[in-house]
């Protein structure tokens, strides 16, 4: 095996159990140490931004939720808020509360999904089986509320599409009680697992000095001890009226990011409990908006941000005097994490760390290439 001495090229993906979604990392290995890493995307490129130029506002609303598959709701919220900013719509307080609730539910679901991926990336097959099932219970509530498991198309420009079902909030709080019990179990089996600690501590350390300048977002930032969260810095919806805090860690490695995510689960359960208390009983949920052929956006542009479960996601939207959207560009958290940061972190690390690092950065390919 003389070839193993000189660097060999490995295509880690696109079809690989250890890759997050349908992307590929091209690795130059000596032994199992990575000399050079290069990310390749485009396996999921659908040209959403081109399609949206050909759709009216309401038709585009069915497209945006497909932009990031694991958590569609922040995309819908971003789109709806951008359209409202351009068209000058003001949504009612109840609609705001419901949107906040949907966002937090989506955050919880996605964090459970992430936990499965993170545990699976170190071969701990028990946790994915449990956490994906727990996430499914949240999807059941989504189905009851919006009519769909994954793609909800719920946060409509001008409000939300459906009224809350009878006794929905009660069922939600029951589920939250269950989750609080489960998080203790996961804490014992996964976050305190000696093998996970041995592997995750000191791996994929993000440089704190360049983190802000290079536009790292989300847990990657918070695990370095930098307290940034769109929900606090640029409050939207009801977040300035709700009481929650931003968990941070200081090490900046994979394990710190995992702990930050665990604390965020607890925080969003806390937020949901407040929402259940404060949810206004009456109030219209959907503004009267013009027919979708008459829905004209002015020739202006705007820029909105939402905190997803993986970091800040920004939409740039520009209208021209027609019923079509001139331009809508998505800047997801994965764009920079997947290229600038991942290629930097993987150098001089082991092949075994690739899956773990990608999972802890929360890379979601469909929002890189749209």
């Amino acid at each position, binding site marked *: 095996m003389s070839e193993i001495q000189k660097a060999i090229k490995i295509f880690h993906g696109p079809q690989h159990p250890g890759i997050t979604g349908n992307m590929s990392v091209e690795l130059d290995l000596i032994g199992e140490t990575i000399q050079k890493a290069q990310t390749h*995307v*485009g396996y999921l*490129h659908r*040209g959403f*931004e*081109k*399609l949206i*130029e*050909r759709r009216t506002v309401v038709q585009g609303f069915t497209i945006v939720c497909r932009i990031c598959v694991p958590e569609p709701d922040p995309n819908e919220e971003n789109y709806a808020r951008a359209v409202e900013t351009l068209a000058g719509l003001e949504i009612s307080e109840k609609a705001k509360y419901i949107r906040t609730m949907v966002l937090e539910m989506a955050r919880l679901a996605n964090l459970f999904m992430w936990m499965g991926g993170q545990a699976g990336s170190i071969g701990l097959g028990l946790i994915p089986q449990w956490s994906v099932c727990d996430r499914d219970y949240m999807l059941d509530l989504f189905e009851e509320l919006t009519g769909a498991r994954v793609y909800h198309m719920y946060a409509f420009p001008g409000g939300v599409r459906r009224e809350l079902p009878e006794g929905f909030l009660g069922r939600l709080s029951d589920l939250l009680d269950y989750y609080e019990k489960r998080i203790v179990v996961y804490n014992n089996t996964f976050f305190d697992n000696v093998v996970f600690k041995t592997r995750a501590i000191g791996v994929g350390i993000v440089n704190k000095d360049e983190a*802000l*300048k*290079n*536009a790292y977002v989300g847990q990657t930032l918070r695990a370095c001890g930098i307290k*940034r969260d*769109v929900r606090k*810095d*640029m409050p939207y919806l009801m977040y300035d009226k709700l009481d929650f805090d931003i968990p941070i860690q200081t090490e900046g490695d994979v394990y710190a990011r995992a702990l930050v995510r665990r604390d965020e689960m607890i925080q969003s359960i806390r937020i949901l409990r407040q929402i259940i208390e404060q949810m206004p009983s009456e109030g219209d949920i959907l503004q009267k908006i013009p027919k979708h052929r008459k829905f004209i956006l002015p020739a202006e*542009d*705007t*820029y909105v*941000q939402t905190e997803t479960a993986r970091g*800040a996601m*920004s939409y*740039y939207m*520009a209208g021209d005097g027609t019923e079509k959207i*001139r*331009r809508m*560009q998505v*800047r997801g958290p994965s*764009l*920079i994490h997947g*290229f*600038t940061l991942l290629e930097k972190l993987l150098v001089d690390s082991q092949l075994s760390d690739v899956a773990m690092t990608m999972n802890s950065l929360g890379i979601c390919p469909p929002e890189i*290439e749209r």
Partner: protein
Amino acid sequence: MIDLASKLENISLELVEKNKRLYKVVVAIENLESLLLKFINEFGYITLDSMNYRDDIEDGVFTITYCLQTEKRDHIVMVQTSIVRENATLPSIHTIWPQAEIMEREMHEMLGVDFPGHPTLIDFALEHWQEMPPMRRDFDTLEFVNSLDPFRGQRDDNLDVKVEMKRLRAEKKALKLKAEQEENSKSEEGQEHE
């Protein structure tokens, strides 16, 4: 950030305040880099959040928007400039912000803008792409995809929706008429009996 306007007097530009956290600055292409550096060094907008591009084909320009964020991530300024569409060229800013490298790579592929001095202008999402850059407005995606991969033919038992609707409506009307006639006939019979 209210004194932004006063600070920017010496450069020829227009400042719009979208809301209390979002500003928009329109600047000519030659002042762009100096303005970006000024934003970094003097006003504390150190983060490049995204580079957004759109194709204003009516004016024959590409409109590029640099979205900068403060260190606290609580204010955003959109620095907007425009370049002519014919062999468009932009100064590469990947030396200022490393994340600009990938954004410029995407813009180069999707819009066909050239970035002199950019290290890696390779394929971003597309592969073996020979057509014009897809995000230009004069690129017709429907025509392209139809030429490459036609639609699936309709099924044999496929029915035209409009025709079917008409037929169903006619049937319903006929049934209604029949029922009314029966009613009338019944009532007439009743009258005859009396």
